[in-house]
């Protein structure tokens, strides 16, 4: 008789709670990757997360480290306050595109400019999920949302914000990468980027940000499979993947 060999388990960095995320949403993948990296780097017990406002507002119920909830867009400022008084702890924020790229753009840009030694995990699914599918600062041209019902018209509503390219300009930013969660190969690269971003903080090199292209099947009005395809077909051309900065 052969004993059962577990090949896939819940990482200790994830709680046993059922998530409130919709079927096919990639937040679960991003949470798991974060928890695995914190566990593998041996820093889970000295990490403090900063949750934001949006679908990931309850990230603190799922990732098993100390957590604080921040006001909409202000997570990098809250993380700054934490890191300045607890410089030997690992501080990360977990923010969506409305939170980070719209209302919180000032906070994230200045945290990067100051070279705050924090890690920012940026979930870009091109839409406001929690409030029911409004146009986001990262919605591609033509995207139909509840607040761009005939499709985003750049002449009226402007163009998507490319956060990595913006942050990479900041001298205080040490590690900036954009990855995607739409297939297993990209998910493995996303984990490597998260690992690099936390190592960047552990080594005191400065500000680190990882953008993860994600899905929102519910508000995109698609099946989970179609949503993954949409990331590849509609988001990748606007948001090219890659490592934008890696200061040794």
């Amino acid at each position: 008789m052969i004993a059962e060999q577990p090949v896939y388990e819940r990482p200790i960095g994830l709680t046993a709670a059922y998530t409130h995320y919709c079927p096919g949403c990639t937040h679960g993948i991003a949470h798991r990757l974060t928890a695995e990296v914190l566990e593998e780097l041996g820093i889970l017990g000295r990490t403090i997360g900063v949750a934001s406002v949006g679908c990931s507002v309850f990230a603190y119920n799922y990732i098993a480290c100390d957590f604080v909830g921040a006001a909409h867009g202000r997570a990098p400022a809250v993380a700054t306050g934490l890191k300045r008084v607890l410089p030997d702890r690992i501080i990360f924020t977990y923010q969506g595109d409305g939170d980070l790229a719209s209302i919180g753009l000032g906070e994230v840009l200045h945290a990067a400019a100051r070279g705050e030694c924090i890690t920012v995990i940026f979930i870009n699914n091109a839409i406001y999920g929690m409030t029911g599918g409004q146009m986001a600062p990262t919605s591609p041209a033509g995207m139909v949302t509840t607040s761009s019902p005939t499709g985003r018209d750049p002449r009226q509503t402007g163009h998507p914000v490319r956060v990595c390219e913006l942050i990479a300009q900041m001298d205080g930013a040490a590690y900036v990468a954009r990855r995607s969660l739409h297939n297993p190969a990209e998910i493995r690269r996303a984990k490597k980027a998260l690992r690099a971003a936390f190592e960047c903080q552990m080594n005191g090199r400065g500000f680190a940000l990882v953008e993860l292209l994600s899905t929102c099947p519910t508000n995109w009005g698609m099946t989970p499979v179609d949503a993954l395809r949409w990331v590849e077909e509609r988001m990748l051309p606007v948001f090219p993947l890659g490592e934008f900065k890696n200061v040794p």
Partner: protein
Amino acid sequence: MARELLKGNEAIAEAAIRAGLDAYFGYPITPQTELLEYLARRMPELGRAFVQAESEVAAINMVYGAACAGKRAMTSSSGPGISLMQEGLSYIAGAELPAVVVDVMRGGPGLGNIAASQSDYFQVTRSAGHGDFRPLTLAPATIQEAIDLTGLAFDLAERYRMLVILLIDGNLGQMMEPAELPPFRQHTSPTPEWAVSGAEGRPHRIITSLYLQPEALERHNLKLQKKLAVIAEREQRFAGLYLEDADLIVVAFGSAARVAQNAVEAARAQGMAVGLFRPITLSPFPMRALERLAPRARAFLVVEMNAGQMVEDVRLAVAGRAPVRFYGRLGGVEMLPDEVLQAIEQAMRDTRVTKNGARMLDAEVQR
């Protein structure tokens, strides 16, 4: 410690340091900027945290972050900046974090001006942000008192896990007068049991102001209100002058109380039975003491450097048992003792007319 000639903003900054300030986050705005400048030099000298934030919005959220770690955190600003901080103030209140905020009031509304004013009274005591909460508000009238109340502010903030606002105006921030700083306090308190520090060896902690279920949020609100009731019971503070035999009681806070005191002294020299009631805590307002005085005084005169804000609290305490008049100057105009004395004389004249019957009509005498 010896008495030294100290500037208000700098005295508060040094008093905060000696009270164990761990972290300061601020943004330049007149008339509080010296506080930021002073701490920009002193905090790094002592190995403590200082950040000039990109905005008041960011500054208060940095305070929130440092407070989540159980550290003594402070910011300072003036009206326009306090308006921007209201979001963060509400989150601090909701998450029950200790924090100290200094508001050095200037003229408003809008950009207003940079002259001294008391027009943030409502903003601070009533609506320092969305949702049901009131910060504890301390209003010193001298630089010595500002120093003392700065130390008290941190103690109260931690005792009640509460937002405490030190409310002064541009006069007190900018002026110099002799005062004595306290010695450095030992500040080696362990991490509070609610603070985040990393979950090694214990269950993970969460600090949030989010309670999605209405019943849960109601329970949280009731808890906050219960705490406010305890604070109202224990922490009402005021100073009085000539109250024992006063027919007319002048009520004023902060630097308006200094002007009012000159006028009260002058009125006493003329033989008028006038006293001064000076609230030190604006929230909780010293209701109990005023309620005791209400049946004995013939009238109250509230003097403020605004259009009449604290006067509403005085009216609530007096509850119609005596007339409450108001005298104020607006827009950062300095009021002079002579003007207040005239208002006192007028109130005394009006009161005498009807002293044996119903007390005088409650007519406004604002210029």
